[in-house]
């Protein structure tokens, strides 16, 4: 795929669209557009652009399409699979300046926002009005709503509340050919036409650039209760989770951290807990119901004889427990210079088998790397974290082998999916055909070509094209 290159004349046109203060080719700004939360992988754009309106986005895309300049949209840059990295260079389209609340409608329980608003900021706004936006990725202090929509983010509350797509009513988006379109409906029900809203959700910025988001909002629960149980082994933790789910209680969170992850997280949160496999449960709803559900959960967990338990007695304690879980990834970075986080799903009952297989991978490869797993046990969504020193080429090589074993030999044979919530990005492209088959992947590529004939939007991301995606370019960090 031959792409056009940025030149002085195009740069002048881009500056005239967004203003010279919102366009930069400075080496420092290119470096700042070259990364996201994915470690070890960096690709530099040729220019960073921060548009302020959909009209500006449209003009930028029209220009880029005419000259076949790649455009990679980016929210806060918190993805973990290279989703927002400008693999083919070109334009890094930084959407984080478009961050306003456009319209809140409490009676209809909807809100319209620009894509750059941060998840936690949106929830602060909504909390003042008695509502919340339930999807709760660990990156919620930084992740933008636009990025969450583009990646169909899940998070800790997905078991009860679903993922981002379950809360999006409509989108305004700019097609790579410059047209501004609106998908979906303001109403809760609509089966009018193909569901293009759902098609754009999770498309990782390969089909269109999202410029407005219409969301459903949910009334804040009256009460929340959280408790923590620590078990000797992962099997007991999984059995507890399965029993809780089949008891009729639908927790708002059912989370898991293995020994190394929980140790790092509790140290970060300055909590004095014994080492072991931690299960964190949160129930929410009416106070009386929460009390009963929390009691039921506690009874089930105690039967499994945890070595330790703690029940949050105040909202501060609950927040502390949950923030410890949310900080699991960065907290693990205290244990190793590089933490490479993966994302997979398996049927819940297969978790012990998957966990055991994952734990053996470094040993089987004879690789000088470690692994620690946490995740959303209620949905069978595990996050194995490979621990290494990314500065060492041998360890980077071992990591690539470990990822291949993980997806090829563990996830697919166990009937899982190669990503539960982080997306394909560039790091899981090789497994798309393995999971979906050649026919369906071909269909996906046709969809991409229909939206984006010149393949300018977020190229080389596996959900679209060009195909095949490049292998991980590791060690290219600036």
């Amino acid at each position, binding site marked *: 795929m031959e792409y056009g290159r940025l030149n002085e004349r195009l740069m002048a046109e881009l500056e005239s669209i967004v203003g010279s203060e919102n366009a930069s080719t400075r080496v*420092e*700004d290119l470096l*700042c557009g070259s*990364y996201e939360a994915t470690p070890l992988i960096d690709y530099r754009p040729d220019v960073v652009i921060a548009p302020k309106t959909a009209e500006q986005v449209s003009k930028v895309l029209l220009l880029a399409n005419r000259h076949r300049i790649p455009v990679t949209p980016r929210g806060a840059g918190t993805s973990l699979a290279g989703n927002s990295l400008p693999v083919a260079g070109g334009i890094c389209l930084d959407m984080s300046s478009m961050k306003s609340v456009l319209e809140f409608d409490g009676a209809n329980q909807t809100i319209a926002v620009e894509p750059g608003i941060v998840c*936690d900021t949106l929830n602060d706004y909504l909390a003042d009005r008695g509502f919340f936006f339930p999807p709760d990725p660990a990156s919620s202090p930084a992740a933008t709503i636009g990025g969450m929509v583009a990646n169909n983010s899940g998070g800790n509350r997905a078991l009860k509340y679903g993922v981002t797509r379950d809360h999006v009513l409509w989108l305004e988006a700019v097609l790579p050919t410059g047209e501004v379109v609106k998908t979906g409906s303001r109403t809760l029900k609509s089966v009018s036409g193909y569901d293009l809203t759902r098609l754009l959700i999770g498309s990782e910025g390969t089909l269109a650039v999202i410029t407005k988001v219409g969301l459903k909002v949910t009334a804040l629960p009256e009460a929340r209760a959280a408790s923590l149980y620590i078990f000797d082994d992962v099997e007991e933790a999984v059995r507890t989770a399965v029993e809780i789910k089949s008891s009729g209680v639908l927790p708002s969170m059912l989370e898991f951290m293995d020994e190394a992850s929980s140790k790092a997280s509790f140290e970060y949160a300055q909590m004095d807990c014994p080492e072991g496999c931690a299960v964190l449960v949160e129930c929410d709803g009416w106070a009386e119901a929460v009390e009963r559900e929390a009691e039921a959960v506690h009874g089930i967990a105690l039967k499994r004889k945890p070595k330790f338990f703690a029940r949050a007695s105040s909202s501060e304690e609950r927040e502390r427990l949950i923030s410890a879980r949310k900080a699991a*990834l960065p907290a693990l970075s205290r244990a190793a210079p590089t933490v490479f986080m993966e994302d997979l799903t398996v049927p819940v009952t297969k978790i012990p088998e998957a966990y055991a297989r994952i734990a053996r991978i470094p040993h089987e490869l004879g690789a000088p790397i470690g692994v620690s797993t946490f995740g959303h046990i209620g949905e069978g969504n595990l996050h194995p974290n490979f621990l290494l020193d990314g500065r060492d080429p041998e360890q980077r090589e071992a990591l690539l082998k470990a990822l291949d074993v993980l997806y090829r030999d563990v996830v697919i044979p166990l009937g899982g999916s190669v990503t539960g919530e982080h997306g394909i990005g560039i790091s899981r492209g090789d497994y798309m055909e393995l999971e979906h088959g050649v026919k369906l992947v071909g269909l996906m590529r046709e969809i991409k070509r229909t939206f984006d004939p010149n393949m300018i939007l977020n190229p080389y991301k596996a959900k679209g094209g060009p195909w095949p995606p490049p292998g991980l370019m590791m060690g290219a960090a600036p």
Partner: protein
Amino acid sequence: MRPDIPETPLKGFLEDLEKCVRCGFCKELCPVGDLYPWEANSPRGKVQLLKGLARGSLRASDYIVDRMYFCTTCGYCLRRCPSGVRTNEAFEAARATLVGLGLGIPEEHLRIVDSISRFGNPFGEPEGARERWIPPGLKVGGRSEVLYWAGCMASYRLEETAISTARILDAAGLEFTTLGRAEGDCGSILIRTGHWPEAKRLAEENARRFEELGAKTLVTSCPGCFRTFANDYPRLFGIDLKGDLGLEVIHSSQLFERLMGEGRIGASGLGVKVAYHDPCHLGRHMGIYDPPRNVIRGSGAELLEHSKSRWLASCCGAGGGFRSAHGELSLRQAARRAEQLSGLGIDAIVTACPFCVVNLRKGMEGLGKGIPVYDLPVFLEMAMAKGKGPFRSTRP
């Protein structure tokens, strides 16, 4: 740049910077990153720029200098970072490194450095004007167990803070002394803006004077002075006032709380609702969150808490040389913070920092809400007068 780094103040942070996992948790509440959303303005962006410098993939540039000074040193990023990167201290060290390399430092900061060296204060005010706040009869100079350090801001720009503090201590029957015109600068703004050799000279000079006075407790009004004496002197210059001189450094809010607990001052209340604004250098940097709150509650006022308080508190926008270098943006941040707290339905904002008072008042001006902003000692003195506690009014 690379070959020089090991010999610069940034040296101690190189391993630290590598711990950054680029999670971005530091970005959203960063006051300046939010004022001007642009990755290089965010703490995460700054850390990557410094990594680029350290690895040699970037050369020191005026653009990097500007980014490093686009920061109020509020420390939100420092407390937010789950990986434990000492971001804020690294940015200060980067400033010191860039100053050492002779790069384009903001002119306003150079004027401040010049003023401190010529007049002993950052405002270019005559040294003699420093004692303007001192009421008649207050002990100046001489030996005492307690030394009250008013600081430049309270001495020159917010005299009410120093006057109320002196009166409260007097009312408590506490014997104390001040340095008057000889007080000088603590070095805080020099450290924050990267002028470490100049700050070190002041630190040595101040330590010598403290030793001569033989005081056991040093009380500051300004959280910047407090952090500088208690934290930066030992960390940066190896001058440990507590360990070497037996001099305990405390913030005035801690002393007020102590005196209140001992029953030496009391107040029965103004019957008002107030919000407390946590000054960054007192809260996030020094971990002092409760003493000012206890004093406010002890004054009988109803304290309302905003969700962005304590370690999550938004900055007033004044610190780290940001107000002098980026006046308009600094005021925008002050207005945002003032508006945030005003939304609680309060009668007044109380804080414990003269810098915050001045900036928040300016921020409040544009809101048209007329909610007053008080420094803690001024608020406490009003409450004591109202409550007819043991306070002896000596206001001239």
